């Protein structure tokens, strides 16, 4: 019998099945992706596949220095050092300049000596080392700059060096393009021919149980000669930021739409029972028990769920692979393990329980239906609750639409709920997509650097200073040092210690033209004031107005936190500090970054050409080279993911609207027949439906905007750690308008069949 019922209502159950399939697929896919990447991150970055610390030092003796330091070596399991060169020359591929921060070349004699994960993925994958004038580069770097095996990289400065790309590699220190640091590997002979400062590239793997070695254990000579240092937490963060964002938001969003779908199913079932009230009474009068009747309905929904939910779980696998393939592209690849299988089983059990539990909750009213009650419902009476018209003597389609919305409140609320959630999720993911794709316009928010038109990375000599300050194209320039390396600890009164690396210093943090974006408070402007990142604020429990104890090298003192900014740079543990305080701490620093705001009407290209002509040794970039990879990486990751999720949520909206339209048409079929019999035209009936949809969509759009304004920024900030979500007015308007047009179009399509059907057929039940 229940199979017959399924057949009779096949389209409705098919739609319910598709909705369950879609929502389950996203939920299962996102859960699997989140679990697998979390598990992968925990396993990969805690094992010997990844170094615990990476240093690039200015000295060729750094390796010896470390080996002689027992405080360090006692805790180190493996030390791997390569001679290197710090590259200051311009780098070009096909005459196109490629800007890289902390560019370096390492000598690689045998790839099998590398103690961490290192895989040759393209090119001469069987070679054990690069030959002379060959270079191995990371695949992340190659993708960001459209470099392929066989291309030639030119280093040009006072010397010229030509290197042929023969291998693209993946390695643990470069888990994503967001890393920003991409070591290049050459032969020893090639390295010797590069006329650049000597350096040493050192990776350390600690012994089991050792999480970190305090900076004070390292020799001062070692620490003061660092180009950069990265710990495993920083490396992990560049990998996990994306997975946290998309996995986290995707999972939350899919759970919301699954729950909305279940609410919709409840509503459809409740309406169904109301319509079938009399039939239920007839069944009971013929001897059917309530239990049997309940089981009959449960079987229908169980049947749909048993097919749709497992298919959805299977459908989630490609989604998980899509997301995982993007996040794990530069590591060992994405694989599904028993974690996902367990998650799949649990997902099936939980979602089926939610579905059947809710269906059963509605069906519990069946035992209360007596045959006499049910049989008295028919042509002359109804179980429906009756409401007064909001607009008396209504006649026009618009006023009748308002009355219909008022009288069928539960259906109206359901439509508004479904549409609000759909609008909101599309707006949320549209905003995330927009935020990520316009990252370079908001680097101040993401990385704690000032808002500028462009920058120049070069030592700020008196000549450079006067050239830029007196430049006819420049409105304002401030100078800073973004790579001050010092042993820095921040601690609060509870004793929580946190190292900050690097620390940034600018001549002024308060310039109104070249300004900084702070989430709370203000940048430092007086001595003994600092700005810290939001991550640091959370970890040490300090906020604006608090004093913290700052140790920089040998100096210790209390500093006032004046403001909190966001930064993804190097693990998100950075400081803003004034030069006067660096002097206090006896820190050696030199300004090597000029942050420039151009005059109105001057374009970046114009200024770039002017500098090229007048001071060719200075290279103007639209934003700092070290951030370029992060920007490209975020864009490459966010585009396919947000696009997929937006399409899915649009599909979810369409399916639910279709479901509601079908139910609406079924319920109102007779009414349409009566209206036609009374002389109302198809256009009138269509207009009534369209007005009803328009009003409900408008209410839903307003709710969605309110939800977005209240929650989206907070949700994004909590998941990513940066309050950077942007939703421009044009995007809001575009999403809202497009969705409303789509929904009105669907409504119109569903009213079309009424045209051709005669009043008699419509009134037949």
């Amino acid at each position, binding site marked *: 019998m229940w199979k017959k019922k399924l057949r009779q209502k096949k389209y409705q159950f098919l739609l319910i099945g598709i909705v369950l399939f879609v929502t389950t697929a996203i939920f299962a896919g996102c859960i699997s992706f989140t679990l697998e990447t979390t598990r992968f991150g925990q396993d990969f970055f805690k094992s010997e596949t990844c170094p615990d610390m990476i240093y690039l030092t200015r000295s060729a003796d750094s390796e010896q220095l470390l080996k002689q330091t027992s405080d360090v070596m006692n805790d180190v399991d493996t030390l791997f050092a390569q001679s290197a060169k710090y590259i200051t020359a311009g780098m070009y591929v096909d005459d196109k300049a490629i800007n890289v921060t902390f560019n370096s070349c390492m000598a690689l004699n045998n790839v099998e000596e590398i103690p961490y994960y290192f895989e040759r993925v393209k090119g001469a994958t069987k070679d054990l080392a690069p030959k002379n004038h060959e270079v191995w580069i990371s695949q992340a770097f190659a993708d960001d700059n459209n470099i392929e095996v066989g291309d030639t990289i030119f280093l040009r400065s006072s010397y010229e060096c030509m290197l042929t790309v023969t291998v693209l590699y993946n390695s643990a220190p470069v888990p994503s393009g967001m890393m920003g640091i991409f070591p290049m590997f050459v032969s020893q002979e090639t390295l010797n021919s590069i006329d650049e400062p000597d350096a040493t590239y050192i990776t350390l793997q600690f012994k089991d149980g050792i999480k970190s070695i305090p900076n004070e254990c390292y020799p001062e000579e070692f620490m003061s000669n660092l180009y950069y240092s990265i710990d495993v937490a920083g490396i992990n963060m560049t990998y996990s930021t994306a997975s946290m964002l998309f996995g986290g938001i995707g999972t939350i969003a899919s759970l919301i739409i699954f729950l909305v779908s279940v609410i919709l199913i409840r509503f459809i079932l409740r309406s169904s029972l109301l319509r079938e009230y009399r039939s239920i009474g007839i069944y009971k009068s013929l001897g059917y028990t309530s239990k049997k009747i309940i089981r009959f309905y449960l079987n229908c929904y169980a049947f749909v769920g048993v097919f749709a939910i497992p298919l959805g779980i299977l459908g989630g696998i490609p989604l998980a692979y899509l997301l995982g393939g993007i996040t794990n592209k530069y590591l060992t690849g994405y694989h599904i393990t028993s974690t996902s299988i367990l998650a799949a089983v649990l997902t099936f059990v939980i979602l089926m329980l939610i579905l059947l539990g809710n269906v059963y909750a509605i069906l519990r009213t069946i035992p209360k239906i007596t045959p006499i009650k049910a049989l008295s419902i028919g*042509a*002359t*009476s*109804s179980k*429906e609750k*009756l409401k*007064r*018209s909001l607009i008396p*003597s*209504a*006649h026009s389609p618009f006023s009748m639409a308002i*009355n*219909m919305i008022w*009288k*069928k409140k539960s259906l109206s609320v359901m439509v508004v709920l479904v549409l609000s959630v759909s609008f909101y999720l599309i707006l949320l993911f549209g905003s995330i997509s927009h935020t990520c794709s316009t990252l370079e316009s908001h680097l101040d928010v993401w990385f704690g650097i000032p808002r500028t038109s462009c920058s120049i990375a070069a030592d700020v000599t008196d000549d450079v200073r006067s050239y830029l300050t007196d430049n006819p194209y420049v409105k304002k320039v401030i100078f800073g040092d973004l790579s001050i390396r010092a042993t820095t600890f921040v601690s609060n009164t509870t004793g929580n210690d946190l190292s900050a690396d690097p620390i940034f210093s600018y001549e002024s943090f308060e310039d109104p033209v070249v300004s900084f974006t702070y989430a709370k408070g203000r940048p430092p402007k007086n001595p003994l004031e600092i700005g810290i990142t939001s991550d640091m604020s959370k970890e040490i429990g300090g906020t604006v107005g608090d004093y913290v104890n700052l140790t920089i090298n040998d100096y210790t003192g209390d500093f006032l936190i004046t403001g909190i900014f966001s930064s993804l740079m190097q693990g998100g543990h950075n400081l803003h500090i004034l030069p006067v305080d660096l002097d206090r701490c006896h820190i050696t620093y030199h300004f090597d970054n000029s942050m420039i705001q151009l005059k109105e009407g001057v374009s970046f290209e114009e200024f770039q050409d002017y500098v090229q002509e007048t001071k060719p040794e200075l290279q103007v970039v639209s934003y700092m080279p070290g951030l370029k990879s992060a920007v490209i990486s975020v864009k490459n990751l966010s585009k396919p993911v947000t696009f997929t999720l937006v399409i899915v949520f649009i599909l979810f909206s369409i399916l639910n609207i279709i479901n509601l339209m079908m139910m609406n048409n079924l319920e109102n079929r*007779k*009414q349409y*027949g*009566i*209206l*036609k*019999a*009374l*002389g*109302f*035209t*198809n256009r009138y009936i269509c207009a009534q439906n369209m007005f009803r949809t328009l009003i409900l969509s408008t209410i839903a759009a307003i709710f969605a905007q309110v939800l977005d304004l209240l929650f989206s920024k907070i949700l994004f900030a909590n998941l990513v750690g940066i309050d950077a979500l942007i939703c421009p007015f044009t995007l809001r308007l575009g999403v809202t308008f497009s969705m409303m047009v789509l929904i009105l179009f669907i409504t119109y399509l569903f009213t079309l069949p009424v*045209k051709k059907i*005669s*009043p*008699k*057929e419509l*009134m037949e039940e």
Partner: protein
Amino acid sequence: MKNTIIKTEKLCKSFIIGKTSNTVLKNIDLEIYEGDFTIIMGSSGSGKSTLLYSISTMDTPTSGDVSILGQDITHLNEYEIAAIRKKDISFIFQSMNLLPDLTVFENVAYSGYGLASKEQINQKATDLLTSLDLGDSLLKYPSELSGGGQQRVAIARALISDAKIIFGDEPTGALNSSMGRQVLDILTDLNNKGQSIVMVTHDIKAAARATRLLYLSDGKIAGDLKLGTYIPDNRAEREDAIFQFLKEHNW
């Protein structure tokens, strides 16, 4: 000489059930006259409701021509047909088919809006309902009334537009004898005042109110009985005459 208000020529109506086609009305030529209370009778499945729907714009004939008040409805567009349904004809259904979300008053007035000013229609609706003993039920919903009450609302709705023809598909079918009689009295009264009515029924007592009786058999008009104006005192004789007529046609 009475005016023809409805005329059919070779009217056919077929239904497709599965793979088979079932022709219910077979080349019916028919004229219905102004001022008549025309009743269509026939055995179950003879096509009487089908005929009623086909000549009232409620259903589309498969072939043939149908004219209402001189207009060939088989060649009219959607708006022209809607105009006929709005102004020229009214329909009373067996299951009343009132709009459940509208009150009694709204059900009647809603059908009339657009034909005169709102105030006039509102007043007319109130007057009609009061004349049908529904003055106290204006704000009630159809489901709060008895079957007879609902059918009286349907009659009021049919009268709001001053339609030239009222169609009825077994309007007393869902009512008990007392309520049915009430409805028939109202319809007879309207007909005595000149209202043209076309009705389908299987009840001889209802048929006795007719001025003309058409018998449908096997999709064709098998018999046509003229009865003259109904007088309550002649009810028994009329019923006997109808009974004989039906017997001759093997009803």
